[in-house]
């Protein structure tokens, strides 16, 4: 995907979110999963504000402390801050992430979210769904379906952190790029 495609996809996803939750927009909150989910959450917030003239609150969640592979990591992950300043009770939380793959990251985010309270509902929006689920997790809103093999890596670049907007698939061995 290139910059224009990403922009259109954000726009479409924003409309879908509003459509599905039209009855309780006031209960919505976007929570971006670190790292790339965070800028995406802010982009959705901005687009939704443009469309509906309403500002959905954004929170940030760091799932490092909830990982299931914490004992097996070769290099430990740095723990960044989780910032959820809103009260999650009775809200419709929309988790935001860049790529949905095995589903483990989202499982962590759900477990951590539940420790903050009892949301009315949890929905999931992702920019890319690349398949190969290992946990029964399904996204409610998908930017693009990208069937991939285990040999491939999907990287999402966002200008807030990477100086460009792009989605690229790499081969594991020879880093052959395909946009």
């Amino acid at each position, binding site marked *: 995907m290139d910059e224009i495609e990403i922009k259109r996809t954000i726009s479409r996803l924003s409309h879908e979110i509003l459509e599905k939750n039209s009855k309780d927009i006031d209960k919505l909150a976007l929570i971006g999963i670190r790292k790339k989910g965070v800028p995406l959450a802010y982009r959705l917030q901005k687009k939704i504000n443009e469309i509906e003239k309403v500002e959905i609150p954004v929170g940030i969640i760091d799932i490092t402390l909830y990982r299931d592979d914490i004992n097996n990591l070769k290099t430990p992950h*740095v723990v960044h801050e*989780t910032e959820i300043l809103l009260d999650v009770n009775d809200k419709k939380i929309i988790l935001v992430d860049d790529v949905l793959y095995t589903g483990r990251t989202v499982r962590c985010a759900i477990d951590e979210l539940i420790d*903050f309270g009892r949301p009315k509902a949890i929905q999931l929006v992702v920019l890319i769904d690349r398949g190969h689920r290992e946990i029964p997790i399904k996204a409610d809103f998908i930017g693009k379906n990208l069937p991939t093999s285990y040999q491939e890596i999907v990287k999402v670049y966002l200008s807030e952190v990477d100086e460009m907007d792009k989605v690229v698939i790499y081969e594991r061995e020879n880093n052959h790029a395909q946009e």
Partner: protein
Amino acid sequence: MLKSKDLISIQSLSVEEINLILDTAKSFKEISDRAIKKVPVLRGKTVVNLFYEPSTRTRISFELAAKRLSADLINVSVNTSSVVKGESLKDTIKTLESMQVSMVIIRHSEAGVPTLISRWVDFPIINAGDGSHAHPTQALIDMFTVREKRPNFKDLKVVIVGDILHSRVARSNIWGFTKLGAKVVLCGPPTLIPKEVEQLGVSVTYHLEEAILEADIVMLLRVQSERQKANYFPSIREYSRLYGLNVDKLKHNREILIMHPGPMNRDVEVIPEVAESPSSLINEQVTNGIAVRMAVLYLLAQKSKK
């Protein structure tokens, strides 16, 4: 990633390692504001508080830190008078090793004990205070607390007041603050200033008023009455007159921030009005204590094989 499997003294930590711990602690701080103050990261790990010296606040602080990380924590308080010289120490540690604990936090009245036991086992040892040698987590808490208020250490002047000679908190803070680039000044009677201490990159003054001028932070140390009996100073009254912090002494520097590792001797090191004033960071030190200790437990748990 921390280099050593143990945390025994600030002396052996690099600036990068200190910053890693402080940055990690920052991320852990919000967990104590949640309704459910727990994350599952150390689930199934067993942490032991092995305290040969009595302590309430440090012990509870470590206990809360471990529990908020979902670890199982055991408190072992050893009555010093019943401990036979040396042998019991090795037996105790080896017993814990056979029970497959993940980490041991040890406080002991003798310097060098954590170093000694860290050689006998391959799980992490955290020093919660060994004699007058080191108290690394307290220094990390102090550095974290200062960093929240004054992020730039390069121009910072920190004054440590009191019984430097017998203070592990002072030693660890000297290492920590000088490594991070601050200027450290020690203040106390000559009898309580260790020899050759200037070699550590600090300066010394015997007069509190002089020390406080232009200082950003003043760190007060607890003074023990036994020191008076050993003739380090003539009386608590005279000590307090010369080195106790009160409103009058602070009048030349109202911007200064006040710290104390606790527990305080009210009216000796500091009067309550000062300790409870807005310039006091003493409560923050306690709150931050848990976040910093959580960070230490988390980072060292990665060095533990169990």
